């Protein structure tokens, strides 16, 4: 039997954004050989991302769900929206890294290329319609992030973070693979839609082996989005990685993980909703608890933000637990808001890093309001938003998730989430108190650069605008997820 090679124009069109990013990544590596100033390389990266963004924008017109490459790759509003999150994450990360990587003496062209490759991996994950593509996209993202984590080769912290991330990541992907294998064995296919079809026709929603496959896959995704008890890597890796990469991976892989989770759980395992909700509820509670409680006793801001991001993963998960399209909308909406506020906060952390000064300790924030009022005010906005205080975007994000959760009848869970959210407010406000009510112990020099200022302006304005005018983002999310 000879299968003809059939690639239609539509097939190529659908992967244009991913292709663009990968090609730009290759160009960057070539450019790196001839260009001495790495700023140019970074700008090329941003330009490539904008190009890819344009491609996705063009594809937004294609509203109907399209399956291309023999049902391997799906193009729908859901995937496209996540891609927008990835682009924003990528652009902001590049903006905040330029100066920082010079200070860390790790400003390689490959850095930007790897960022692009990692992002294309995430995009493939978001668009994956087959578990094989999903697995490869996940590995592409993961391998690139492992390298980026260990990029500061001379620093033991970075090395250690890379080792931990790599080993635990590989361990979790063994589980993913086992889960895929069992699901494949039970359904005879790796295609997401066909799995859903097989589950309902074969009536195996209550089969213990399916449970096992489902749990193994959930475990792997939980690892990527850092749900407790699979979160252990996150604080260490976030602390050890270059701060710009911490910002990058506190958003990107998390969003990609949730994209996949939403697609797999609601798409492939839609018939097993009762089962996966059973598993996710304790995970969500445990995640919010560990994130909010352990963050209280942190003294390193990167570590504190790591725990904070764990807690936020718990909140985002709640929307998926709600199990309705509205719940998913709330989660996706939260992710977008989280992208802005989290990267904004990390941008301030990066600003404190200057030659010969780490600026990662909470004590370094003492008296920041006096010496650098604008930076302190921005940090205040981000902290308020992370804590979920109105009128910042963080409040809106949490609010919708909780409302959808209550709407789906999980009121006790929503109350637990609100309590942990209140607890988490303390450690965010502590930074505010440090900045505004304590006296500085030492002179702080901020590292500024034009791109950094742009990133800060964009994130802070978005945090405020989305807090005051949240509906436009929500309509956008709804429009995107409508077809899903």
């Amino acid at each position: 039997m000879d299968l003809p090679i059939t690639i239609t124009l539509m097939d190529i069109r659908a992967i244009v954004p991913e292709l663009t990013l990968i090609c730009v990544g290759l160009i960057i590596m070539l450019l790196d050989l001839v260009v001495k100033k790495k700023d140019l390389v970074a700008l090329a990266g941003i330009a490539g991302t904008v190009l890819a963004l344009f491609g996705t924008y063009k594809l937004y017109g294609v509203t109907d769900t399209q399956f291309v490459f023999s049902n391997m790759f799906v193009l729908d509003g859901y995937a496209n929206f996540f891609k927008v999150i990835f682009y924003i994450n990528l652009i902001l990360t590049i903006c905040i890294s330029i100066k920082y990587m010079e200070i860390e003496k790790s400003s390689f062209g490959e850095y930007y290329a790897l960022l692009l490759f990692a992002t294309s991996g995430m995009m493939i994950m978001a668009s994956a319609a087959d578990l094989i593509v999903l697995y490869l996209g996940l590995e592409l993202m993961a391998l690139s992030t492992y390298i980026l984590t260990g990029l500061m080769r001379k620093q033991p912290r970075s090395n250690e973070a890379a080792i931990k991330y790599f080993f635990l990541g590989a361990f979790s992907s063994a589980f993913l693979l086992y889960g895929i294998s069992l699901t494949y064995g039970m359904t005879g296919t790796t295609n997401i839609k066909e799995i859903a079809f097989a589950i309902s026709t074969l009536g195996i929603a209550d089969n213990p082996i399916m449970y096992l496959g489902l749990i193994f896959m959930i475990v792997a995704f939980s690892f990527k989005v850092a749900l407790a008890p699979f979160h252990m890597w996150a604080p260490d890796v976030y602390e050890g990685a270059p701060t710009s990469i911490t910002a990058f991976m506190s958003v990107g892989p998390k969003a990609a993980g949730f994209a996949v989770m939403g697609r797999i759980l609601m798409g492939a395992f839609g018939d097993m909703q009762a089962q996966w909700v059973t598993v996710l509820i304790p995970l969500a509670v445990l995640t919010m608890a560990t994130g909010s409680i352990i963050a209280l006793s942190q003294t390193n801001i990167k570590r504190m933000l790591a725990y904070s991001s764990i807690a936020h993963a718990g909140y985002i998960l709640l929307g998926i637990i709600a199990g309705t399209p509205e719940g998913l909308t709330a989660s996706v909406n939260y992710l977008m808001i989280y992208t802005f506020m989290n990267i904004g906060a990390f941008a301030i952390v990066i600003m404190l890093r200057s030659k010969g000064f780490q600026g990662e300790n909470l004590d370094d924030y003492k008296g920041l309001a006096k010496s650098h009022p604008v930076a302190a005010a921005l940090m205040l906005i981000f902290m308020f938003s992370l804590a979920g205080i109105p009128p910042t975007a963080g409040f809106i994000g949490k609010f919708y998730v909780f409302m959808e959760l209550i709407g789906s009848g999980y009121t006790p869970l929503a109350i637990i989430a609100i309590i942990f959210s209140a607890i988490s407010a303390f450690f965010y406000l502590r930074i505010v108190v440090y900045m505004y009510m304590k006296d500085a112990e030492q002179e702080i020099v901020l590292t500024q650069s034009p791109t950094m200022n742009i990133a800060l302006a964009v994130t802070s304005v978005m945090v405020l605008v989305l807090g005051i005018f949240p509906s436009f983002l929500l309509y956008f999310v709804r429009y995107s997820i409508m077809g899903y």
Partner: protein
Amino acid sequence: MTLQQIYFGYFATMMTIISLLVVSRKNPVHSVLWMLVLFVHMAGLYLFLNAEFLAAVQIIVYAGAIMVLFLFVIMLLNLRKEEKEFRLQKQWPVSAVTAVLFLVVLVSILGKITVLPELGEYSIDMINAQGSLMTIGNVLYTKYLLPFEIASVLLLVAIVGAVVLAKKRIE
């Protein structure tokens, strides 16, 4: 007991024993070497399952390339003195209990597995008629073209990563 079952019995026993050896050797070089033996057995099992192409890949790529890379690294790291110390960590009893429990759970659940879905078109006869390599190649370059291309990017990232992490000069 059929011949096939005896054949499987040999492979299963050997693979279990070799796996235990791989895990328990003090010297990493021995582990890698036992791993190679394991791969040969796995290739045999693959042949038994009509996966000739994978059997070849297992030997050529996995054993011949990946494991050799491990050997290189072990040599590079020069780990002589490690051999005097205890090979397991303090938490090994916990690990052992976990692994055993895991095995119990897996076996108790998976022990009852049967073939549920409709059988696909790739019957033994069909693969034999076309040849394993031909069949896989056909699928790989048509249906699975996209993952194949993604894998190429993945390998590129691996090259870049290895260079950046281990080779690149930093002033």
